[in-house]
Every structure is written in C-alpha cells, then in structure tokens.
C-alpha cells in the first residue's frame, strides 16, 4: 500500500543551557493515504515536536520526511511554502492559536490570501462562507473576534483555517484536549466527517487513549522522544507488549461501575529528555527492568505481524 507520508530516522534535538534535549530521537514510520495515525504519550515526550518537524515548521536535526515523493525535511524557501498548501496543522490550544486581533473571517481567509488562491474578493468571501459552513460556524460570526468565542468554536476556526487550502495531510496536535467532553465529541465527529469527505490523512496527536481508539487506524506510543510501540489501533487494545503501553492502558478509568482494571503502578515520573542515559529510556520506571535494559537501547522490532515494539523482553512480559 502506498504511504502518503514516510518518516525515516527523524531526529530533533534542541540545544539548551543544560545540554542537548532529545525531543524526537530517531523516529521512523509511515502513514497511508486516507488513514489516521494516532500518536500517544505523556506530556513532554515530543509529540508536538514530531508534528512540527513533519511540516518542517521546525527544521529537523536529521532524517527525512517523504511526502508524495518529496523530502519535506530538505525543502526550503519557495518549495516548502508550496508544500504547505498540502500539509497543514491544527493546534492544541484554541486560545493561543488564533490571533486575537483578527476576526474569524480574516483568520480563515488569510491562507487563501497568502497563496492568492482567488482573484476576486467575492470568490474569496464565498470560499470563507463555505468553509464556515463546513466546520459549522454560523455566518453571523463572520466578523467576530476570537475572544468572543468559546473553545469549541475557536477550534472550528482553526480547523477551517487548516482546511482552506484543501490540504491532503493534516497534523492534529491534541485538537480536543482543551475542550469539555461534550464539545470534544462535536469536534471529533466533525474531524471524522471531514476526513471521509475530503480523503484527508491525519497525524492525530493526543494523550487520551480513548480518543485514539475512536479516531485512529494505527497508533504510535511515544516515550521520551522515541517510539516504544507501533501497531494497528485494534491490536493495541487487544494485546500490548511494551510495559509502558500496558501501564498507560491500565491507567485509564472507565466511566462504568465496577469494571475497573487492575492498575499497573509506575514508579516515579517521566524523566528529562536532556542528554538521556544509554539503554532503554523507560528502564528507570519499568517494573521488569533488568541490567541489560540500562545498557543497551532496545530496537523497534516486529513481535507480531504489523506490531512493533521497542523492548527486548516484550514476549516474556506479555
């Protein structure tokens, strides 16, 4: 099957006063056209950085991002600018991702103006109206400013802006985390509808496993900049190999009486990604860790068809 996006050995390090921060550390994966790849992981594990590097909003330290036969990571200037027509992003924070000084319509129209998609103002207006319809924003909000809107509507504006150029691929960086459940559900539904209608491909970042389960086809579990487990979403919920994934799943509280899972307690908290120690990044918190784990870094390997895990003891543990 042809992948729309293929990522190879992608790395992004930040240099900080305290040392090199390995935000994304040697990550490879692919996303098929029309599918959704979910990315889960705890705060600070590099999810957003991954999304930004994919779009070359941040220049990767090394690695390749192939999109329709072109390496986005190497694209520069005008070419990159052109590529952005096809690759867009929806941001996590509906409050800070909209310019408070621009009205809703201005925000949505901005990409269309930048790429001079339409020649006449009328066409532009029509397209803005159309986009507002698509994401379910009433037209009376045309000249309203973001601070007058609630989170859900703001997120719709962000989605409309991302859709404006008819992109093929959208990085969704926790688009619903900041929203209340009932609003979250509205947005998730909207995004699913849009995907179906426009054959969109999503990279969907979240820390909520239930959301991944609902929306994604495949899933990546990240820990401190690295992929620890990768498989089809159904697989993950049936059978987890990596101890971190197991802990993550067991931590979910189900909204149902008397059906609580036995929780796997994790020691400590997520460590700092600055100058990480050799060996498995998860080892300090892992209940199964042995000496080997602190020395040798486990490679991602296929433990079952289409199911990749970065743990040398994956089989024994499960």
């Amino acid at each position, binding site marked *: 099957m042809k992948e729309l996006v293929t990522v190879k050995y992608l790395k992004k390090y930040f240099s900080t006063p305290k040392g090199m921060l390995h935000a994304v550390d040697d990550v490879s994966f692919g996303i098929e056209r029309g599918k959704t790849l979910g990315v889960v992981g705890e705060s600070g594990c590099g999810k957003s950085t991954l999304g930004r590097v994919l779009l070359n909003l941040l220049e990767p330290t090394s690695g390749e991002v192939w999109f329709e036969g072109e390496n986005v990571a190497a694209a520069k200037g005008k070419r990159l600018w052109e590529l952005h027509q096809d690759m867009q992003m929806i941001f996590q924070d509906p409050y800070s991702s909209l310019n408070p000084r621009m009205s809703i319509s201005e925000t949505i129209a901005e990409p269309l103006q930048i790429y001079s998609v339409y020649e006449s103002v009328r066409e532009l207006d029509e397209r803005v109206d159309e986009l507002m319809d698509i994401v379910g924003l009433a037209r009376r909000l045309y000249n309203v400013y973001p601070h007058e809107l609630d989170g859900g509507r703001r997120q719709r504006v962000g989605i409309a802006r991302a859709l404006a150029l008819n992109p093929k691929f959208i990085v969704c960086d926790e688009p619903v985390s900041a929203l209340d459940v009932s609003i979250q559900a509205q947005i998730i539904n909207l995004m699913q509808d849009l995907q179906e209608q426009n054959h969109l491909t999503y990279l969907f970042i979240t820390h*909520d496993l239930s959301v991944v389960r609902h929306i994604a086809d495949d899933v990546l579990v990240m820990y401190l900049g690295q992929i620890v487990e990768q498989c089809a979403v159904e697989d993950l919920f049936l059978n987890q190999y990596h101890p971190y994934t197991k802990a993550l799943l067991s931590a979910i509280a189900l909204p149902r009486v008397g059906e609580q899972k036995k929780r796997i307690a994790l020691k400590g908290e997520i460590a700092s990604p600055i100058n990480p120690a050799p060996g498995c990044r998860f080892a300090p918190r892992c209940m199964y860790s042995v000496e080997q784990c602190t020395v040798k870094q486990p490679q991602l390997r296929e433990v079952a068809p289409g199911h990749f895990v970065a743990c040398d003891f994956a089989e024994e543990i499960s």
Partner: protein
Amino acid sequence: MNNATPLLHVKNLHVRYTTDEGTVHAVNGVDLVMKKGETLGLVGETGAGKTTTALSILRLIPDPPGEITSGEILFDGHDLVPYSAMKMRKVRGNHISMIFQDPMTALNPVLTIGDQISEVIRLHDRLSRSEAYGKATRMLELVGIPADRMGEYPHQFSGGMKQRVVIAIALVCNPLLLIADEPTTALDVTIQAQVLELMQNLRTELGTSMMLITHDLGVVAKICDTVAIMYAGEIVEYGTLQEVYNNTRHPYTKGLFGSIPKIDVRERRLKPIPGLMPDPTHLPQGCSFHPRCPFCTDQCRHKKPENVLLYGDHFAKCYYAEDGLQ
C-alpha cells in the same frame, strides 16, 4: 455528633459574581448532602459552578465580586454562612480542607515544602515548631516523598509530587471533609492514576469524607460512592454511583455519557450533546438545559423543573425523569 446528621448539607445555595459584563449566576440553588465517610463526585463541564460551590463551602469566594446570596451550608449541623472570619478560620484546614486544581500554582513558590506543611499544623494543633515539623515530615513520607526534601522549594518538584504535597497539606490535620477540585486534571495519565490511588488510600486510612470535583466520569466511577451532576449552577442529577451510571435519568447526564469515546467498543460516531452551555449572565428561562435538550417540550421552556425523587436517594431535575426518556 449525631450519626444521622449528614456531614455536609448544602441547601438551596445561590452564588453570583457581579462583573462589568453583567451578573454571573454561578450557582443557582444547589442542594447537596454528604454522609460521613462518603465520597461524592461532583461532575460538570467548564463553568458549571463546581469550583464556586466548593469555595462557598469554605467561604473563600472572592468578595468582591462574588457573593453568597442565599442558602445554607450545614457542616455537621452548623450553618457556616453566618460564621465570622475568625470562626471560619478554625474550620478551614482543620475540619474542611481543599485541594486545588493546579498543583503548579497551589504552592507558594518562595516557601519551603516543609514550611508550607507545618504551617497548617501550627495553625490548628498546639504543637511546637519542631513537633510540627516532625509531624509534617511524617505526612510527607506518607504521601511518598522522602523526608530529606522538606527543605526544598516547589519548583524543585515535579507536578505529581507537588500535587502530593498539596494532598499532604490538606490531610495533615485530619479534616472531616476534603474537597478536591479537579486534583488530577493537570497531570499526566500515569501520574493521575498514582495520585488518585494515593488519595483514595489515605482517605480510607484517615476516614475522611471527600468531595471530588471532576469532569471525568471515569475517575468518578473509580472512586466515588455518590455522584452529583452539575449543569449551569444546578445539580441536575444526584444519586449513588450505581443509580446514576446505570439508571441515568437526566438528558444532560445521558449526553455526557454519549460524548465519551468508548475504549472497548468502536463506534462509528459519538453522540454528543448539541450546542453549548448557556451564558451564565443570561440563563434561559425554564429548564436551563432546554435549548440543548432533544426531549424539550413547552413546559421545559417556561418553568424550571423541581427535583424528582427516583429510586432511593436518586434525584433528577427533569419533568420526564421518571419516564426514563426513552
């Protein structure tokens, strides 16, 4: 202390904030009963008035702009609303304590952890400085932080650890009631689980009653005995966990459940509640949920429904609660 008197009985509480933009009717006639030793889950979306309710119980509503306009808050049979500031101080931290939503900001950045825990001890127990310090150290260890970190400052702690310190502060004087306002929302999933577990253990150990404020129905299912669902400043459904989860009667509660993606079954679409929470400065007439309610009738539009008593202590504020809304 009479065992029959509930630990906390909030009666018809009204709270409003007066702002430039208008009067915010944050709490509109909340009734709540908590028995001793019980854990109540107070669930609702942003702006429903959960925090306001909790702060009113401690009489910590910022005044101005906030103001308790009517109602009673009976704690162990005594109404807290008319208490003097002096008297109220004796209650706070001692009989009722509170954990706030964001551990990142709930601790004073310029005081050591040790100072902040012993402060509450010295306020309520007649202990010397060193005794208080010793007690604080034991409490810190109880929440799983080594004693040698007593002299450190909040910024040297991670979010999860800070939240544990906050829990330590709240529980160190053995309060009768612990109000936890979204204690884990700001934390990561795995840390969330750790902290919740810790709270639950300590609570059972110390026999503290707890009001857990959250918008996560999963968390409620895990640790609460009774549930109160809040919408636009009102408790719209109240009952035991069993009743509310398995015998949901209010359309809003149903909507909430419908909005949550299921982890075990894959549905094609979620069934969210349409529309938005009403503007608290301009609440709709009649049932405040009616604009979003699929079962809304004329009656709902004009007259506020009263509590409908269902099975046991299960109440719902809906004309059609008894019918089951099928």
